[in-house]
């Protein structure tokens, strides 16, 4: 379950993250939560990278660390050839106009006391972009693009909207500065299926119209498959598999990806999913297991998995897995040990 290794990285990426580590102290105990333990990935311009995993696997922390919220412990994050970890506060602030974020809970991520127009216009005011009329026109255009009628909505406050509409307003706020990368942290998991479909379609449309690159973090594999060009599966602070959605879903190579896929309820009573039994829940990231981090729950774990951490290697075109004994693609060659 290592996220170590960089076989899957490409040149010419819009965003390139290397060996990212994020740790949090646990109270005054002197212990640390190793939320993200050395992961590398990249996103090409115009691509959608899906990141899936269970709660606590570090997927949201990864998204936030890109924006330096908080700054990671080590690793480099380069966006258009600028390293965000070395830019300093002002530099990061400027760069954040091109990297925006959408959060999970649409209602609590909007200020309840402000009008929708002011919420969406604030980034323009902060950066003093255009005249007042130009800003207003921009806000109206963006609101219209996300499917909110500016004439009716602009003078209302967030509580007068449903969850789906609030998420649209959050998206408008993220779009107003014309960013190139949007990090979507579970943007549809708080929504009903019918509304979820609307927001997913909207994100696809906006991606085309606004030339966006998306990082889409979610725990729902079907949603991630629908929207992504490439999917990274995370477990306990590490990346275990990177592949195109079609390859990942038709032939997962990592045992954890397989468990995740087979846990999804299928909306068809005639389908009997062969469940892979997986014991218990993810271990604590304060004291992660040695070797492959999935080994205590893995049906195929051997002694090698308990001592040696696997690295990501290519088993098919664009399909990378960090596992000694993957479901297909052959055993990992016994190689240099990675600490």
């Amino acid at each position, binding site marked *: 379950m290592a996220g170590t290794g960089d076989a899957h990285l490409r040149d010419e990426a819009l965003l390139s993250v290397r060996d990212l580590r994020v740790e949090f102290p646990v109270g005054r105990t002197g212990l640390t939560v190793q939320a993200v333990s050395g992961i590398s990935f990249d996103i090409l311009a115009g691509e959608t990278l899906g990141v899936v995993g*269970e*709660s606590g696997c570090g997927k949201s922390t990864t998204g936030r660390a890109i924006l330096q919220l908080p700054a990671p412990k080590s690793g480099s994050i380069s966006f258009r050839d600028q390293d965000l970890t070395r830019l300093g506060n002002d530099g990061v602030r400027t760069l954040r106009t091109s990297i925006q974020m959408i959060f999970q809970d649409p209602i609590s991520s909007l200020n309840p006391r402000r009008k929708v127009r002011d919420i969406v216009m604030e980034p323009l005011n902060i950066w003093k972009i255009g005249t007042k009329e130009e800003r207003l026109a921009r806000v109206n255009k963006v609101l219209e693009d996300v499917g909110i009628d500016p004439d009716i909505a602009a003078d209302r406050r967030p509580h007068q909207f*449903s969850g*789906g509409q609030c998420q649209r307003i959050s998206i408008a706020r993220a779009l107003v500065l014309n960013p190139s990368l949007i990090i979507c942290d579970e943007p549809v998991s708080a929504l*009903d*299926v*019918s*509304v*979820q*479909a*609307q927001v*997913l*379609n909207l994100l*696809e449309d906006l991606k085309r119209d606004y030339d966006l690159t998306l990082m889409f973090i979610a*725990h*729902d*594999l*079907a*949603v991630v*498959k*629908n*929207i*992504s*060009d490439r999917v990274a599966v995370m477990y306990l602070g590490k990346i275990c598999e990177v592949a*195109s*959605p*079609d390859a990942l*879903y038709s032939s997962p190579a990592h045992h954890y990806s397989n*468990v*995740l*896929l*087979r*846990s*999804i*309820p*299928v*909306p*068809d*009573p*005639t389908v009997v*999913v062969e*469940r892979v039994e*997986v014991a*218990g*829940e993810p271990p604590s990231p304060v004291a992660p297991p040695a070797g492959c981090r999935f080994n205590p729950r893995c049906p195929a774990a051997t002694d090698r998995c308990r001592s040696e951490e696997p690295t990501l290697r290519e088993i098919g075109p664009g399909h990378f897995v960090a596992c000694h004994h993957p479901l297909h693609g052959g055993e990992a060659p016994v190689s240099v040990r990675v600490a």
Partner: protein
Amino acid sequence: MNDFRANETQTRLRPESGELLRIDDLYTHFSTALGVVRAVDHVSFSLDRGERLGIVGESGCGKTILSRSIMGLLPRRNVLRGGSVVFGGAELTTMSLKDRRRIWGAEMAMIFQDPMTSLNPVIKIGKQLAEPLRVHLGMTKADARATVLKLLQDVGIPEPDKRLDQYAHELSGGMRQRVMIAMALACGPSVLFADEPTTALDVTVQAQILDLIERQRRERNMSTILVTHDLGVVAGHTDKIVVMYAGKIVEMASTGSLFGAMKMPYTEALFQSIPKLEQPAHTRLVTIGGRPPNLIHPPAGCRFSPRCPYATDACTTHEPPLVEASPGHWFACHHPVGSERWHEVSVRRREVA
């Protein structure tokens, strides 16, 4: 100690097979400052012993209020209710609070959506679990503790003797949900309501919890009522499904018949809006325009008509009755899936797409 049926009233109320629960013309309206909210509007269905029922719909369609109305867990003020709920031959709606208390927990139990807030944070797990046993079955402290230990084992909690003396915050979300299930099962109820039992959980844990409920149902010959917005969850875990929209039942059928031949355009739309694993990436999802109606002034005619692609003038004026179209398959629609109007519009929609 393991004889959960020791109580006289319990044996009387629980038939071993056949009809266990009958809901007839049940309604629950709330009077608010803005008007009367028709949260559950004249709903009828029945449930057999050991049967697994799913109640499906979007948020705000009344599914949670329906399950609470059946149990009688509603505030006393500003609620208008009527209709009947017959459980094992006894009418629950007119029963005194004292008698209903004897049924809650012992005969009908409920697992709530949010395991984080449904447990008391300042009482140890063991004591919380023992409470229904001591109250309903009159067990001694020692007997209750032994039973609780067995219950925790049954629901798959590792090191149960250690957990007894822990507090809710020391357990993970999945463990807390297991404790909630153990608590609901404590007195061996014959009906288990599970209101979105897995929404707050991860997929792998969700699968474990649903399997656990299913295993316990089989072992205890219990009926389950699974309330959820996720058609994927009900497909594999129910025998019969009730689809609700705006406080009414719009379709009701056996699970096989519903998924095999769904009739109501709302059910079809709910199903189509789910992203499916077998579809290739970037498949355009079919959406339902708009959102569920305001239940103070529901639309005239069919309540789904403002959002329905097949709606005609008749739909906006005449409310379609819930009819049994084929044995066991009920729906309320003028232009069901497969009708002439449906074909006509579907062809046009496909051309546009």
